């Protein structure tokens, strides 16, 4: 049996104007018209801040294409929420720099071009017990 295509995650960047509105609206419209399954979230940053368990279930769902912003930001937002993305299973499409057309086409393509920046930190290096400053 062939592998299902990667799952799709769309970020609406609700609480800032850094993603052009016409780009994010056109990407969402294309997803809705395509009839595919996808996850749409209002604001990945907000989810990361609240360590929303949804990020863990999204990160653990296998290969994923994410329409959001810079891959470096998305990588560490997931990490900071305790839900690291697997570097070889995630492709981030940057709605701050790419066109809606480019993003829509890449999101719906079945092949995944993993593009998280890879550095010295291993995905398994998760924080240990915390000690907050008062």
């Amino acid at each position, binding site marked *: 049996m062939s592998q299902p295509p990667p799952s799709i995650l769309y970020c609406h960047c609700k609480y800032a104007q850094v993603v052009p509105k016409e780009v994010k609206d056109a990407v969402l419209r294309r997803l*809705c018209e395509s009839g595919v399954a996808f996850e749409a979230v209002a604001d990945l940053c*907000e989810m990361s801040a609240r360590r929303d368990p949804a990020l863990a279930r999204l990160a653990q769902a296998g290969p994923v294409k994410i329409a959001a912003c810079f891959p470096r930001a998305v990588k560490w937002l997931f990490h900071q929420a305790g839900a690291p993305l697997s570097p070889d299973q995630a492709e981030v499409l940057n709605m701050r720099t790419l066109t809606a057309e480019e993003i829509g086409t890449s999101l719906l393509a079945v092949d995944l071009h993993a593009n998280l920046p890879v550095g010295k930190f291993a995905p398994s290096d998760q924080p240990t017990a915390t000690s907050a400053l008062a």
Partner: protein
Amino acid sequence: MSLSTPTLRILLYEGEGAQPLAAADRYAAISSLLEKGYAVTRSAADRPVAPADSSPMLVLGRFPGSPPDVAETDIPVHFHDITALAPAQLADLVETVRTDTGTAQHGAWKPWFPVIDYDRCTNCMQCLSFCLFGVYGVDGDRHIQVQNNDNCKTNCPACSRVCPEAAIMFPKYKAGPINGDLVSDADLQKEKMKVDISALLGGDVYAMLRLRSEKAKSRFSKERDSDKALAERQKCLIKLAAAGDIPPEVLMSLPSPEEIARRAEEAQAKAAAARGA
């Protein structure tokens, strides 16, 4: 505001037992929910969506008869028929369910907080010592961590300017590399944008962080020259002001040398406690 309240998961169901939505209606429904801060899963047979977890779930769909059966589960699942609902009414319905389930309200806080790139971070602790609002802490292995996101001052990227490695991002910032764009060599060279936190002290607080004996601490306090510290602090204020995007209330209340030293000691004590736990 509590960031730990569970969130409501919304599933737009168009499978067996439900009538599919026209593309325009689907877009209108999902957009209206995103604009209210919700996350929506649109399921279909072509590819996977994230599996269920323990979050309360609201299933929306056009159900001509009774809603589809659900396999036995401990997750609270609510069904609503949305056949006759306009997008605005849909958002109202979801808000009612959110209140009834006691799940998180969205939009009360602009998600502005630092995100650390651990591929770059050297764990120097400058950000922890600098931040006025207790946003940073350390984990049990004394690694720097962002712990109190909602203490962060909205639109203030000051700590990203004190980080010597350009390791601190604010994804909603307007420009790179603070917004998460790649860090170039030129970015690292922009020393004029950086504020040397040790200059705030007229001494080396980081050496103190490493040397834990009482003797070392007393040497640190003797060596600190308060006039020099004040002059350096003023220089730092001017540099931050020149960056042009630090909120005035942050500029007005940069930590005193004593406050920075106190925070450094506190962080160290808490790290030791976390290690011993």
